C-alpha cells in the first residue's frame, strides 16, 4: 500500500444556507482554503470525488453544477458517490492506491434545510414495507435508544453526559450550530421530543459543505509539515431492516474498525454519532477506552451537515495530528438509519 495522508481540510457549517442547492458558491471559498493550506492549485489535484444526495436537494443530478466550483475546463478526473463524502474520500484513497494519481480533493455538501430533513430521510427506508408509514429518522433512532435503555446498556444520564460534553466542547468550534454546555440535571429536566430522546439528543439540522485533500508520499510532505498518514481505512454495512440486526451494537462499525487495523493507541476519536446514544454504541464497537478524547469538535450533536459530516469527522481528527496534539487518531463516518453503514479512518503522525 502507498503512504497516503490527509493534508488539507476546510469546512463551512450553518443552520440555514441562503443559496443554491448545488452550493457551488459555498464550495468556492472552501476549495480556496484547501489550496491555501497546501500551497497547491487546481492543476495539482489528480482526482476529485464528491458526496451528496439528489433527494436532499430535491432534484436529479444535483451534484452536477457543484463541480463548477472546481473550475472544470479543462476537464478533470472526477467521480461522485451518493453517500457521505467520507466514502468519496475512500474512493479517492483507492484511486491513489492504484498509482494512477498522487493527489485528490474530496468534498461533500448538503442543504438539509431545503426540506424537512427527518421526513426526507424516510425515503431511505424499505419502499414497500416501511416508507408508506413515513417513519422519520428521529423515531428510528429513538427505538434504538430505548432498546439500549431496556437492556441496561445505558441510561438517560449517560446520554445527557454525552450531550453535555459535546455541547461544552462545541463552544470552541466556530462552525457549531448548537453549543453551550449545561449540566446533566438540567438536560434531563428538558421535555421529551421522541421519547426517550430529547431534542438535544438529536443532531441539529445543518447545512454545510467540507473538503479534504489527500496526497501520497512526498506530495503529502510537500503540502503539510505533519501529514495525517492514513494507516487504516475501511468501511462496512449492515442490513437496513430493524428486525434483523441487533440495534444495540454496530457490527459494521466493529468490522470496519477491525479491517482498519484496530484502534489501539488512538488518543482522539471523532465519531459521527447523530444521536447521543449512538456515540455509546460506536465507542464500544470501535473499542475506544476511557482514555480516548471523544469528539473535541463537539461532534455531530453540535453540527451535522448531511453528506459532509462524516468527512468533517476525518478532517477534525486529522487536525489533531497536524497541530501535534495527538499521534494517533480515528475519524468515523456513518450513513443510513440507526448506524447502518460505518467507515473508520485511522491516522498517525508517523508513517
Amino acid at each position: 500500500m502507498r503512504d497516503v495522508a490527509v493534508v488539507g481540510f476546510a469546512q463551512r457549517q450553518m443552520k440555514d444556507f441562503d443559496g443554491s442547492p448545488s452550493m457551488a458558491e459555498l464550495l468556492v471559498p472552501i476549495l480556496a482554503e484547501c489550496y491555501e493550506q497546501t500551497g497547491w492549485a487546481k492543476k495539482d489535484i489528480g482526482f476529485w470525488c464528491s458526496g451528496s444526495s439528489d433527494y436532499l436537494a430535491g432534484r436529479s443530478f444535483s451534484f452536477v453544477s457543484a463541480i463548477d466550483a472546481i473550475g472544470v475546463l479543462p476537464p478533470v478526473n472526477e467521480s461522485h458517490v451518493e453517500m457521505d463524502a467520507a466514502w468519496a474520500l475512500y474512493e479517492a484513497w483507492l484511486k491513489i492506491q492504484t498509482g494512477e494519481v498522487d493527489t485528490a480533493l474530496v468534498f461533500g455538501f448538503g442543504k438539509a434545510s431545503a426540506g424537512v430533513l427527518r421526513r426526507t430521510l424516510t425515503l431511505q427506508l424499505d419502499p414497500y414495507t416501511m416508507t408508506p408509514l413515513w417513519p422519520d429518522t428521529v423515531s428510528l433512532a429513538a427505538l434504538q435508544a430505548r432498546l439500549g435503555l431496556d437492556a441496561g446498556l445505558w441510561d438517560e444520564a449517560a446520554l445527557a453526559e454525552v450531550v453535555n460534553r459535546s455541547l461544552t466542547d462545541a463552544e470552541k468550534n466556530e462552525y457549531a450550530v448548537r453549543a453551550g454546555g449545561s449540566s446533566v440535571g438540567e438536560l434531563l429536566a428538558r421535555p421529551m421530543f421522541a421519547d426517550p430522546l430529547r431534542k438535544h439528543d438529536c443532531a441539529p439540522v445543518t447545512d454545510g459543505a467540507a473538503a479534504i485533500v489527500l496526497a501520497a508520499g512526498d506530495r503529502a510532505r510537500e503540502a503539510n509539515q505533519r501529514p495525517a498518514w492514513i494507516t487504516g481505512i475501511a468501511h462496512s454495512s449492515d442490513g437496513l431492516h430493524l428486525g434483523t440486526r441487533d440495534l444495540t451494537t454496530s457490527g459494521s462499525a466493529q468490522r470496519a474498525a477491525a479491517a482498519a487495523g484496530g484502534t489501539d493507541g488512538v488518543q482522539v476519536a471523532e465519531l459521527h454519532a447523530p444521536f447521543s446514544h449512538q456515540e455509546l454504541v460506536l465507542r464500544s464497537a470501535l473499542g475506544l477506552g476511557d482514555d480516548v478524547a471523544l469528539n473535541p469538535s463537539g461532534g455531530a450533536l453540535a453540527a451535522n451537515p448531511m453528506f459532509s459530516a462524516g468527512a468533517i469527522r476525518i478532517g477534525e481528527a486529522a487536525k489533531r495530528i497536524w497541530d501535534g496534539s495527538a499521534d494517533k487518531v480515528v475519524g468515523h463516518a456513518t450513513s443510513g438509519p440507526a448506524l447502518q453503514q460505518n467507515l473508520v479512518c485511522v491516522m498517525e503522525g508517523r508513517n
Partner: protein
Amino acid sequence: MGKIPAAVIGIGQTHHRAKREDVSMAGLCREAMDRALEDAGLTLDEVDAIVIGKAPDLFEGVMMPELYLAEALGAAGKPLLRVHTAGSVGGSTAIVASSLVQAGVHKKVLTVAFEKQSESNAMWALSVPIPFVMPVHAGAGGYFAPHVRSYIRRASAPSHIGAIVAAKDRNNALKNPYAHLHNEGTTVESVLASQMLWDPIHYDETCPSSDGACAMVIAAEDVAKTYEAPAWIHGTAMRSEPTSAAERDQVNPQAGREAAAALWKATGITDPAREIDCAEIYVPFAWFEPMWLENLGFAAEGEGWKLTEAGETAIGGSLPVNMSGGVLSSNPIGASGMLRFAEAALQVRGRAGEHQVDGARRALGHAYGGGSQFFSMWVVGSEQPAN
C-alpha cells in the same frame, strides 16, 4: 507496489423490458447478480465487497436504495459503495469496483447497476421544474436534439446517418436475447418514416425506457488466472466538465476527448481504429454514434459519419459498434453504462453468442452522462496486459 492486474470473471444481466412487473428492485438486481456469480462459479458469501450504481434516486423514489437493498443483495456484513455519476454511472461503478481490486484492497468484487424506470417516469424525473429555468426541456431528447443539429451542420452530414445507426443497432439487438427491443424489419426507410419527436430526432432514433440490471465480478490477477477466459482490464478513464460554460463544445466535448486520450495512453494504443476490434459506445440517440466516433478518436472531426455510412460499424465491418444492440435497444439508465462495459468484456471472452465479433481481442466499453459532460470508459482484452 504497482497496480494489481484485474479482470472480469463473471457477467450477468437481466432481460430488459419496458416494465419488469414480475420482480421488485431487489429481484431485478439479484437476477443480474446471480447470473454473474454463476458465470464466475462463486457464491455471494465469497465476494469481498459490493459496488452498486444507479442514476438519479428520483427514478425509483427511494433515497440511496442500496441501503434498504443491502440484505437482499448480500451486502450486509460487507463494504458497500454507491456510485452516481449520471448516465455514465454504470461505467464509473465498474471502474470503482476495478480500483478496489487494483488497489490491492479486495480480491473479488461484485458490481451491479440497475434502473427500474417503470416505477416512475424518466421524463418527469429529469424535467422536475427548477424555478428560474425556462421549462423548454422535454426530457433527454429535448436536451440533446439541438446538439445533434449542431453536429449535422458542423460535419455537413447527410440527414439519414442517424437512421443507418438505428437500423444497425436494432438489427444487432435481434441477436441479443437480453435486449429490450426486438423490432424485426427495422430499415433506414422505416426509421426515417417514424415520427419526428424532437426535430431532428425521429422516434426510431431514440432509446427506449427500460427496467434492467447488469452485474460483473471483478477479480485480482491470482484469482483471474484460474479462469478460462477472463477479460483483463487494460485501462480505465473518467473525465468531467461543466454542464454549461461559455464556448463549451457540446458536440465534441473536451472531457470525452481527454478521457479517450488518457485511455489510449494508459493502454499503449496509438491507432484506436486499428487496434480496437470492437466498441460498445453509449448511443442513446442514433446520431451520437458518429459524434462519439470522432470524440473517441476513431475518426477525424467531421468524418465519423463516413465510417457509419460505409457500414464499417456493423458487425463484419472494420470497427463494429454496439454489437449488443446498444442503448438504442435497451436503456435501463443506471445500468446502461455497465452493459456497455460488460458487452466489451463478453466480446473479448468470446462469449457474446450470436453478436460475437470474430476474433475480438481488445474492446472498448464507453459511457457518458449528464449533458455530455461525464465520461467513463475502459479497454478490456483477452490477454493480460504487459505492464
